[in-house]
């Protein structure tokens, strides 16, 4: 079985994101970029499934500019086998990403797709669900446990009320939560080895998919900032303030 894992290149989660003064977007110049955090969990899970003997190849797919190759390399250094970059310099919405993934699925025929549950830049939380609907494969979203049996899998999902378990038939598509596993670090020898692993670069135009955005960004603005409040000396003062100043208790 082949596993297809999608990885998105995003501003690193530790960076304090700044809105550009002209309202056209956020500052991306000289900003540290990394793999979208839950995508690391997706890569890790794929590696574990392969190590358990249930898969024999892990393909990493990223959609975006040339530099996404770095993100793919990171996944290859963790242990994935090869990469595909669908190249475009334009912003690609989840709708288009799901169409591109479906196209790659036609070509590669994987038995399982793992994605992150949410990209931490656009915070959309859509792509896995859309891809599932397009392929007509079952979806296992917000997965914090994936147990693969012969022809099906039991998934533990993180839902607002707690945890839910579902059983899905293979092939299926999962969107991974950060609690799914602890992603490994790439060792130095594996980083070296990853340099020789193949990445197939396909311009998006070659796929014959309409990727024109449907949503227009009118403006990107800074949220209202909170006034820094006061420090209180002790608990007694805190309670007095809450009772008589803020009047919330």
């Amino acid at each position: 079985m082949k596993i297809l894992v999608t990885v998105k290149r995003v501003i690193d989660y530790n960076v304090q994101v700044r809105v550009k003064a002209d309202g056209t977007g956020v500052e991306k110049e000289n900003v540290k970029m990394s793999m979208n955090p839950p995508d690391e969990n997706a890569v890790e899970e794929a590696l574990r499934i392969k190590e358990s003997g249930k898969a024999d190849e892990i393909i990493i797919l990223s959609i975006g500019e040339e530099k996404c190759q770095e993100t793919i390399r990171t996944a290859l250094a963790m242990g994935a086998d090869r990469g595909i970059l669908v190249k475009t310099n334009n912003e690609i919405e989840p709708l288009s990403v799901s169409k591109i993934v479906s196209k790659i699925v036609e070509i590669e025929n994987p038995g399982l797709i793992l994605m992150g549950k949410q990209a931490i830049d656009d915070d959309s939380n859509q792509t896995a669900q859309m891809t599932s609907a397009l392929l007509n494969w079952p979806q296992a979203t917000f997965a914090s446990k994936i147990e693969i049996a012969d022809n099906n899998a039991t998934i533990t999902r993180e839902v607002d009320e707690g945890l839910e378990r579902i059983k899905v038939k293979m092939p299926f598509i999962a969107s991974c939560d950060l609690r799914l596993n602890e992603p490994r670090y790439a060792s130095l020898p594996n980083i070296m080895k990853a340099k020789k692993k193949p990445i197939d670069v396909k311009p998006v135009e070659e796929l014959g998919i309409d990727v024109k955005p449907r949503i227009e960004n009118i403006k990107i603005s800074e949220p209202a900032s909170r006034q820094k409040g006061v420090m209180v000396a002790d608990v007694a003062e805190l309670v007095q303030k809450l009772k008589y100043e803020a009047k919330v208790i």
Partner: protein
Amino acid sequence: MSVLILAEHNNSEVKSSTLSTISAASKITNDVEVLILGFNIENISKEISNYQYVSKVLTLDNEKFEHAIAENIEPVIVSLADKYTHILAAANTFGKNVMPRVAVKLDVAQISDIVTIESEDTFVRPIYAGNALATVKSNDSKKVITIRPTSFDIMAKEGGSGIVESINFDLTEHNVEFIDREESKSDRPELSTARIVVSGGRGLQSAENFKLISDIADKLNAAIGASRAAVDAGYVSNDYQVGQTGKVVVPDLYIAVGISGAIQHLAGMKESKIIVAINKDEEAPIFNIADYGLSADLFEALPQLSSELDKLNSIEK
């Protein structure tokens, strides 16, 4: 303009997110129709038909809809979509699971987690964990939207006089089987709508120590929240998590204890009216957004807080 909203419920009770979603829909039209799928839902269908703004309730009462399986819900919505300009659900794990499927089947982009409706096609949504607000315009003919429940007031549960209409749908079986759900049971207010939330972070050090948090929560009739670090460490279960990848809360009072204030946590609570931070590190970033900061060891401060609350002759709950 006609809007269809997807109701969230557990077959016996309507979730408050449904009210927020109706409230959001009422900003687009005064002709809101509600779709409710479930099993033995006669009572709650009737209940929803009385809600303000609701003109019609479409109900599909069938065993196959007892559990909210996205693969089963999506085709029903898609089959009804022709009649509506907007289809709305809540941006929680229920709505997020279903709506992108609906969008892709209609070949439209989904607009996630909106906090403001500027016009019928223009919306505001937070991106980058709430560090930026995007004003976006949808150029699709039909709008598929999830709304952030805490950003829309809950409307009245009466005053409406909608009709209830049952619908049929021939569900073809899908390859998904519901096994079970492990829900945390508590008598406390629901986290996402509570007036007061007391949250604990890694500073609590253990599940046992979370008793210090629940003691304060009991006295204030508050919900309990947690940082991702506290959930990851197993102090409390995942449904307590507040933040970018957890729940968004906007209580009147949010008390953060032993939480450093990472942006991913702030994403879920920084709109709270009053924020209190208790942390022993006076440099902790949480103090930058706190209305009242107390630099103290929580293991001393929480028992003191408990006894100070006892001393008050009245607590507004």
